[in-house]
């Protein structure tokens, strides 16, 4: 049986060369940006045209914390951080509304418009939600996602707009008040 010359490609020397020259570059792009947030966006929609667009929030707090989120603030909407340690947060709101009443006057005097303060009134919004976690990278940390929001409240009516919290939400709920 005759022996043949093997193709040069299969020579061990060349194989070793191939073995050594392959350089492996590993790139790992780390992005610490998250779209998630624990801020609940609460909008207010006036239930009567006579009400002002602004509401006076005397005090906004939550059960299980001493933190005051708002105090003596005149606003049209709120950003309320839900509790990251629990799947339920109950916010307590003390609100005064402004109503513009027209007071009829005897002629020749013109009717007068008065601002009437209604309140302060105490309300609550209780939010239940599901928290899920994802490690982005160990250097960046953990991204917590809040989803499946459900609400209990003491207002006459609310409109649920978005049941997930994310940074691009304009509003999660509108309170008709």
């Amino acid at each position, binding site marked *: *049986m*005759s*022996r*043949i010359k093997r193709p040069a490609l*299969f020579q*061990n020397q060349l*194989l*070793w060369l*191939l*073995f050594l020259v*392959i350089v*492996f570059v*590993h790139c*790992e792009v780390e992005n*610490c940006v*998250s779209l*998630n*947030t*624990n*801020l609940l966006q609460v909008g207010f929609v006036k239930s009567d045209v006579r009400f002002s667009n602004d509401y006076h929030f005397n005090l906004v707090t939550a059960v299980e*914390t001493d*933190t005051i*989120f708002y105090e003596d603030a005149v606003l049209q909407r709120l950003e309320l*951080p839900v*509790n*990251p*340690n629990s799947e339920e947060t109950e916010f307590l709101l003390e609100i005064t509304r402004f109503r513009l009443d027209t007071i009829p006057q005897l002629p020749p005097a013109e009717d007068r418009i008065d601002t009437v303060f209604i309140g302060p009134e105490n309300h609550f919004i209780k939010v239940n939600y*599901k*928290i*899920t*976690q*994802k*490690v*982005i*990278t*160990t*250097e*960046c*940390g*953990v*991204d*917590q996602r809040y989803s499946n929001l459900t609400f209990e409240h003491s207002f006459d009516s609310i409109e649920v707009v978005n049941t997930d919290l994310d*940074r691009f939400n304009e509003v999660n709920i509108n309170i008709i008040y």
Partner: protein
Amino acid sequence: MRLILISFISAITICAGAIDGMAQIERFIPSHVRIGYDLGGMANTLLSDQLDYHDFIIDTDINKFLLNVEYGNATFQANDLYVNYKSTGNYFRLGLDYNFMHDSKDFNALFFGFRYAASTFDEEVQYPSQNAIQMDTRWPVDTFNIGNNGVNAGWVEANLGLRVRVWNNFYMGMIVRYKIKPWVNKSSDGTLAPFYVPGFGKDLNSDRWNLAYFIAYRIPFRKKKVYEEDISNKE
């Protein structure tokens, strides 16, 4: 006399056919087992404080193919500023490669093939709630201890590799692996999305490249003559 001659020729023909059949069958009988160890595991154990893994590769030849079985265990642990994370588990790979150098007398191999891989692992995470990304920190700090137990993951890999005899029955080699995005099945009802899959790595939402360098020892069963015959035929 004529009858004897015909019988003799027939017997030779039958024997020759049988021998040829045996040779064909013999091609599919493995001639060796090669046991390898991924040197990356040793390097990581020595150099990295995060990843510790050991990966064993066993292959055997079936005609022009190599049947591969791999087994490994890995622990990935990171104690970083914002999070402490640990994942530990086992994995295996099973697959068949085509050896482009099946006629190598040194049993070198330049191969391409596919593997099915599966991993079972546990993971745990610790972090203060205020360290979560994009967190409003006006709530009291609490520490989360969450994790997943008995998570299963599976994926498919395309492998291109080289194995070269360096001395006696010792071989060195490398495998470039292209790992396709895994499926992950959490048996527990945990809220944590799996992060590190032993054998696959991090970033479970995309495919990954990986390189393994290994050393192997070949244990021969029998002499493999079929390749020499192949070479003669080519001539």
